[in-house]
């Protein structure tokens, strides 16, 4: 694919992903409350938080699926609300909750998405994605006949078919067995390193995040509450592992919702 390179001049920070003061209010339910962060090129960044914290909303805004109430979201310098197609051509996405065209064969699905992303040498890109996730045996299978784990692998192949510069993964290994999840983590890590790919990933598997993420953004009640490497977070929260950090943040968030502190300090 001959996509233009990053244009650092278009973003103040030159970041691959940049979110500034993002607010999303779903008719009175505040999903995001002033979230800001920037992810530099080549970084694998995890977006963690309890259910309903605002992780998926953040990713959906970055993909142009949801419009923010306030704030800006940029991918490779392109404002996703105004330059959606330009931004999305250089990104890709997969999630545990999306499916693929049921009656189509795997190679047909990948071919169609390669065309949507206007990939040069679509055929070669499809083969590359198939090889990357070792799904050669599924090439001629219809999507409706795949197990959920196989669908996940095909979804990941779809997400790599345009050799994206920025990749959004929303719980990508949720339905994979430990062996496939291990292989996928290694692949993600290797490709991110070899191709300088930027990855923003959400997951409830803390072991997975400790293994692949350079950095963790912890989000709770729509606010960013921590931003550090997995090791730094363990130190900061005096926790044995990332799961303990997660549980602490989740409990704090729950207590904050039950006992909101007013401006004068009174609950």
């Amino acid at each position, binding site marked *: 694919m001959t996509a233009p390179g990053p244009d650092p001049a278009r973003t103040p920070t030159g970041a691959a992903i940049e979110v500034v003061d993002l607010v*999303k209010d*779903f*008719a009175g339910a505040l*999903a995001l409350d002033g979230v800001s962060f920037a992810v530099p090129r080549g970084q694998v960044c995890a977006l963690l938080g309890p259910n309903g914290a605002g992780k*998926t*909303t953040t990713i*959906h805004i970055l*993909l*142009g*699926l*949801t*419009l923010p109430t306030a704030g800006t979201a940029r991918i490779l310098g392109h404002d996703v609300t105004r330059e*959606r*197609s*330009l931004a*999305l*051509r250089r990104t*890709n*996405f997969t*999630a545990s*909750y*999306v*499916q*693929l*065209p*049921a*009656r*189509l*064969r795997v190679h*047909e699905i990948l*071919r*169609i*998405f390669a*065309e*949507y*992303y*206007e990939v040069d040498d679509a055929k070669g890109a499809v083969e590359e994605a198939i090889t990357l996730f070792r799904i050669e045996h599924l090439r001629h299978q*219809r*999507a409706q006949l795949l197990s959920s784990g196989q669908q996940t692998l095909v979804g990941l192949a*779809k997400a790599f078919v345009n050799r994206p510069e920025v990749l*959004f993964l929303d719980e990508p290994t949720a339905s994979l067995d430990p062996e496939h999840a291990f292989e996928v983590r290694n692949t993600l890590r290797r490709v991110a390193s070899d191709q300088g790919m930027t990855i923003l990933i959400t997951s409830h598997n803390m072991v997975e995040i400790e293994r692949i993420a350079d950095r963790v953004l912890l989000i709770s009640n729509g606010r960013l509450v921590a931003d550090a490497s997995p090791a730094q977070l363990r130190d900061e929260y005096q926790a044995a592992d990332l799961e303990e950090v997660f549980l602490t943040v989740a409990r704090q968030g729950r207590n904050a919702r039950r006992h909101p502190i007013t401006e004068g300090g009174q609950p």
Partner: protein
Amino acid sequence: MSWRRVRAVLLHQWYDTRRSPVRTIELAYWPVLWLVLWGFITNYILSAGADVPGGVRILLGGLILWELTYRASLEMSWAFMIDVWDRNILNLHASPLTPAEHFVGSLIFSLIRASAAVALLVVMAWLFFDYNLLDAGRVVPAAVLILLGMGFALGLAIRAIILRYGSNAEIVAWSLPFLVQPVAAVFYPIEVLPGWLQAVANAVPASHVFEALRAFVTDGEVLAARLGAGLALDVVYFALAATYSARVYHTVRVRGLLGRPGY
């Protein structure tokens, strides 16, 4: 507008149709069933010695041409609903594909399918019921254009309704053309309708087409004003449907509905 992405939409529709016996068979099943039914009805009317202006067989002309509107609308909706049923909408909207490109790809595919269905009806009506649509002469090209335009406008509106209200609203896709048909003057002239319904019928592009068709077959007269009115109404309805679609696309993104189940 990327024509490569438009071609990819066509490719998706082609793959899906090839793998879906229902979608393939349906293209011929209902049109042929209706033609056979109306063919025998016209045979019966003729054998009873009755007649209508322009000849009884003109009813078959109405049936065949209305299939253009119905088929264009249905195929436009179907091309969208396969992604709703497959829960593939999120993948599409997270890709560079724009709603306009998906619409154009669907329109081209719908045009091919509608043409195939109507060609089959034209040949069957000629072979089995001694009716040649082309006898309607110079009015036919304009009629085809206006009826297709109406079908595409309907299809665009239906796609927007499904995008807004999810797969529960798919009943609209099947029923809306039938709701319009009684006031589209397909089988009878506008003048047989009650006064207030005549006003409604005059706001339907198809009713002007069928009035013009009857006038040509009966008197050899080309009612250019009728055809002009039909075309103008098409433009108005298409603009309204496009505006509604743009509003719906904005609303679903504001409400975050694209990521919810059922879309």
